[in-house]
Every structure is written in C-alpha cells, then in structure tokens.
C-alpha cells in the first residue's frame, strides 16, 4: 500500500523538482514594454450582482478606457486571511504592475506582500494600513444611504423598516446610522430594526435574515450585504426594499425603491492612469457623491414625485460638497447626546463609529 503511494509521488516529485529548476532560473518577468498590467482580487464572484459585480464593472471600464495600453485580470472567491497572501504574491511575482484587493480581510495579506515587492503598486479597498507602495480607497457610502433612508421613511406605512446588516463594525454601523437619520428626517415616528448576519456573502443567510425581519412586521427591507437576496425575499412577501451596491431594481424589479450604489469606474481609471504616468502616490482615499464614487440608484416608478423632489434637493446639496449627515444635534440610541448642536463628526470619528443613533432597534455586541 505504502509502496503504491511512494511510487506515484516519487514520479510527481521528481518531475516537479526538474520543473522547479527551470522555473526559478526564469525568475519573475517584469518588462517595461507591453501593456500596464493590473490584477483584481475579489471576495465573491462578479455574478453576485452586488459588491464584486460593481468592482468588476469598474475593471471593465478601465479596459474600455485604456484599450490595448492596459491589461486587467481578476480572481474570484478568494478566502480572506492566509489564502489571499498567496494569490496577491503570485500576481506580484508574475510581474503585474498593480494589484487591487477588494475586501477588508485582505489587509494584512496585502500589507505583508507589499513589503516584498516595492516596485509593484498595491491598493486595498476599505482598510487602514498603508505603505509607500500601498494605498487604501473607499467611499462615503453614508451619504447615499442617508438619501435612501429619506425614501424609506417617506414610503413606510408600518413605520418599521428592516435592515439586514453584515457585521457590527464601524463601516456598517455608520451606514445604519446614516440611513436611520435619513428615515427620521422625514418620519420621526419610524424605527429601523437591525439583524446581524456575520457574513458579507451568503445568499441563504441574507435571505433568512430578511424573512425574520418581515415576520416582525417591517414593510421595507434595507441591507448591507453583497447579494440581492434580501431584496428578493422582500419582493416575495409583497414588501418593498432599498437595494445596495448596484441598481438592484434592474435585477429584482420595481419593488426596489432605490438604493445607495457604488461607481468604481472613474476611480479605477484615475488611479491606474496615475500609476501609468508615474504620478501615483500612496494615500487614503475616501470619496463621496461629489467625486462620483457613490451615488443613489434611479428611483422605482413607485416612488411619488413629492418624495423624489425632496430627495433630489438633498442629493444636490451633497453634489455641491455639503456633508452634514453627522452634524448635531444627534441623539444616541440610549438617549444621551451623540453629536452636540453646531458640531460635526470628524472623518476619524466617523471611521471609528461604534454607537447607534436614536431610532435604531438592535444592539452592537459588547467587546
């Protein structure tokens, strides 16, 4: 029995050693000629019609913009943690000029690999660790979330809105708070019920969480997940929903009233353009509606004109560069003062947000 395995593996190992000798001799291939090469590392498949779908749409816009001067590739379904480091290292090793990693859990992996390849440019979406050759990028999604809250607050009849949320982390908490502030701006009696799923991408869990909320009597489902499942669950129950990531109305139907959406194309085009022209510098980019990075998806025909007008006015204010989502007075969930009148939260305070505002039904697990 043992001999059998030894025999097989001996052949495999010998052959591989021979190949390894050839392989290492060739070494990594970095060329100055030929197209600029950029690789994207995705947490889910582009077919999720949400988070990864939008990043991949941005990648395609890069190809359309630069044509033969840029070559892009991607790898999907990469596990967060140790596996990501292997994948990122392989791209760097193979001579890619730039690597994008589009999930928070890739941060350590990318930070580690970036040190080994000083001539490769790394960009990590949604993290906070940077190097000379590694930058971060993300968007002020709380702005369109606030706007989508205004729509939900205007449209709810039960005065109760459900929110399927991935993780109790500042990014998601900030979104829930912005949404709730938007809801209560137009409807001070409405509440927002939160359920944590502890996953970004899990169609079944996302759907179950939406159903649990609908059972509690909410009539609109909002979400912070990667797929369209919460929207579909709402539709099947005859409820309406607020999408996220992309224009979910196109995939689910007009029960999706609107939704905060990403638009990565312009950012990817500008940062890759900068890198091609040697004008790239490491930075922590946090773009808003003004920059076109985040936006509100088109309204469903179900949204009345009066609501559209109200929201359009607020949208215009963001586009003009005003940003007063987290300006006081704002009361916290426990009734204490969260932001005093006349004050606004700094970027740092927003990035570390760890308390709910008044109107949210749900808890942030204590550390």
């Amino acid at each position, binding site marked *: 029995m043992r001999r059998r395995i030894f025999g097989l*593996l001996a052949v495999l190992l010998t052959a591989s050693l021979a190949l390894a000798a050839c392989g290492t001799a060739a070494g990594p291939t970095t060329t100055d000629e030929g197209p600029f090469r950029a690789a994207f590392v995705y947490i889910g498949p582009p077919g999720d019609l949400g988070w990864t779908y939008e990043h991949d749409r941005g990648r395609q816009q890069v190809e359309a913009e630069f044509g033969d001067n840029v070559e892009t590739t991607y790898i999907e379904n990469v596990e967060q943690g140790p596996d990501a480091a*292997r994948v990122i290292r392989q791209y760097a090793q193979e001579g890619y000029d730039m690597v994008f990693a589009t999930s928070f*859990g890739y941060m350590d992996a990318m930070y580690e690999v970036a040190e080994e390849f000083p001539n490769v440019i790394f960009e990590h979406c949604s993290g906070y660790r940077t190097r000379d050759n590694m930058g971060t990028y993300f968007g002020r999604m709380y702005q369109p979330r606030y706007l989508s809250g205004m729509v939900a607050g205007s449209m709810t009849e039960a005065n109760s809105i459900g929110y399927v949320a991935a993780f109790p982390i500042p990014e998601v908490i900030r979104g829930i708070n912005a949404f709730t502030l938007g809801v209560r701006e137009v409807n001070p009696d409405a509440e927002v019920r939160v359920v944590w799923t502890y996953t970004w991408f899990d169609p079944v869990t996302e759907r179950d969480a939406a159903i649990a909320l609908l059972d509690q009597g909410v009539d609109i489902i909002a979400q912070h997940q990667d797929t369209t499942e919460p929207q579909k669950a709402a539709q099947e129950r005859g409820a309406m929903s607020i999408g996220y990531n992309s224009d979910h109305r196109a995939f689910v139907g007009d029960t999706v009233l609107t939704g905060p959406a990403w638009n990565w194309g312009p950012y990817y085009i500008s940062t890759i353009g900068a890198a091609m022209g040697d004008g790239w510098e490491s930075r922590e980019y946090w773009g808003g509606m003004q920059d076109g990075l985040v936006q509100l998806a088109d309204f469903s025909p179900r949204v009345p004109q009066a609501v559209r007008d109200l929201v359009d006015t607020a949208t215009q204010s963001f586009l003009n560069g005003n940003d007063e989502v987290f300006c006081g007075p704002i009361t916290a969930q426990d009734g204490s003062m969260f932001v005093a009148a006349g004050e606004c939260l700094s970027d740092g305070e927003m990035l570390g947000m760890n308390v709910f505002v008044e109107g949210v039904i749900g808890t942030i697990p204590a550390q």
Partner: protein
Amino acid sequence: MKLVLHKRETVSKRAVVLVPIVSFAVSLFLGGILLILSGANPLVAYGAMFRGAFGSSVGWTEVLVKGIPLMLTGLGVALAFRLRFWNIGAEGQLTLGAVAASGVALFWSQRLPSWTILPLAILAGCVAGALWAGLPAVLKAVLKVDETLTTLMLNYVAILYYEHLYHVTWRAPGYNSGTERFPEFAWLPRIAGRAHMGIFFALILAVVLWWMFKHSRWGFELKIIGSNPTAARYLGISIARSIVLTILISGALSGLAGALEVLGIARRLQQGVAVGYGYTAIIIAWMAQLNPLGVIMVAMMMAGLLVGGDQIQMRMRLPASVGVVLQGMLLLPMLAGSLFTEYALEIKRPEKLPVAGLQQDVGKEATG
C-alpha cells in the same frame, strides 16, 4: 450476469502498481473533458497548475504552507481511523487549537517571560484539540454515543465560538474583525517564504507514529481493537481507555495544526483558520491508507492541487467554480481506484453468487 466485488486474499502486486497509474490517467482524462468543455486546452491547464504549485520557490513554500496543516490533521484523522473511530471533527479541533494558542499569545504575554509564550501557545493548542476530541471519545467509550455525529456537530460549535471571538470578544478596538497581532516573540519562525517550522513537527510526528504503529505495544493494541474488538477484550486490552487516550492524541495533532497556523501564518486570530483542512484530512487519510508516511506524501500532493488550482483562474481565466470541480474530478478516480487494490472485480452469474459473504465484509468496513 452481475458484477461482483470480492475482497482479495492477498494484495495483488500487479494491482498495487497498475491501479494508481490507471486512476491517475482516468483523473487527467475526466478533468481534461471538463477543461475542453470550459474552452481550455487541458495540457496547457495541467502544465500551468503544475508550474503554479511546484514550478518556483514561491510555489513550493506555498505548497508547504497548505501542506503543514493538512499533514497534521491527516495524521490525526488517520490515527483515529485506525481504531475505526470516525473522527470527522478535525476541523473543529484545529479551530479550537488556533483559539487556545491565540489566547495564550494575546493574554499571557504580559504575565509570563516572553520565551515561554511560544511553547505554551503550541502546547495550549494541542490541549484544546485533545479536549475537543476527548469529549466525543469519552461519550463513545462510556455511553456508546455515535462519534460520527458528535465530532461533526462539535465542529460547528468550535467554528461559531471562534468567529464570535474574532468578530466580537477579542476584536482589536476600532476596526472590523480580527484580534490584535501577537507580540513578535510569539511568532513561529519561518524557514522560507511563509513556510514555517511546523513542517518539522509534521515530519517528526509522522515518523514517530509510523514507528509506533509498527513496533510498539500501543500500535499493536490499535490494530487489534480496530480489526476485532472482541479479540481485543479477550486479550485483556482496555478498549475504553485505549479509545480515549488515542483520540486525545488524534485531537492534539489537529489542535497543533491550528496553533501552528495562527502562530506561523496569520499571527493573529482572524478569518481564514477554518477553511476546510480538517475535512480534506479525511480524504488524505484514506488515500494514504492510514499510513503516517503516506499522509505526508498525499498531503503534499493535495496542497499542490490546491495551490496549483489558483492557476485555473489566474492563468487560464476560467471561473473559480471550474477549479473546484476540476479538483474534485481529479480526486474521485484516485479514491475510487484504491478500492481495486483491496477488492477484485468479477463477473458472475447471479445463482452462484456468494452474496452473504460480501455483504458481511462490506458491513464490517462500514460500521466497524
């Protein structure tokens, strides 16, 4: 007319040589069909996979990174299976090993001398894995509770607990998920690339187990209990005691895998520990025919398949799902093939069929 499998009296020399070669050829052929259907040239794809795994020093070290936890969990599972104790809880034992090692690295560093932390963290990982496997072992030995269910269910408990820790209880303040980094003295030294000292643990333990199986009284007892518990009882072997002790060691091996993984690779507790090593270990143990040295080899091959599998996406530009299906297709004939080294296929007329004998054989295989 019927096709009948009967157990070979002696293992055929010809089968030992031919079966793996034919299985491997069938594997490549079936995988090739899949690749052609996906619009790729199979030869180019296989070449890319092979070079991705073994074609560079980075590839080799990454194969080791995947191979170390596969070796250790494979050893743990093989050890339990020798006793016909179906421990499919290696995943949970590995996860708790990672949790315990992280706990020591994170919280004992201020109280104890720094040089003690790394060995204590490794030890804690072993103990946690052992206890997590020991629970079903005691239930089995004392109350005859079926271990297949208990070990499987405890996986989910362990994984949910681990997720709760890095998402909530132990999360580093301020941001998303994951604990603080371990202090540097708690890092397991690396040899090359990310390949760490854990490889020595795996190799030494494999040789020790191999020797023990062959030459020690314990190895003899395992063999008797596994093949004939009644005989073991007559020989005066305490089966309950043997099961519990052996399964504690089985769990400790998986716990060690988890500890080394966090101390050597991630250096903090975060997502990416419970990625299926404990389940792949079951395939490895079977393919290695429960032989510890075979486990090392098969684990390396399996790690190569996992690392090389990246190329299906990176080089061949095929979707991730094709890679996963291909990996399954390559394994299936190899597993099925091992059947033919132990059993011979015969064509028989139904009336002459000695069905009872066969069923007994098969029944024994399945229930132990």
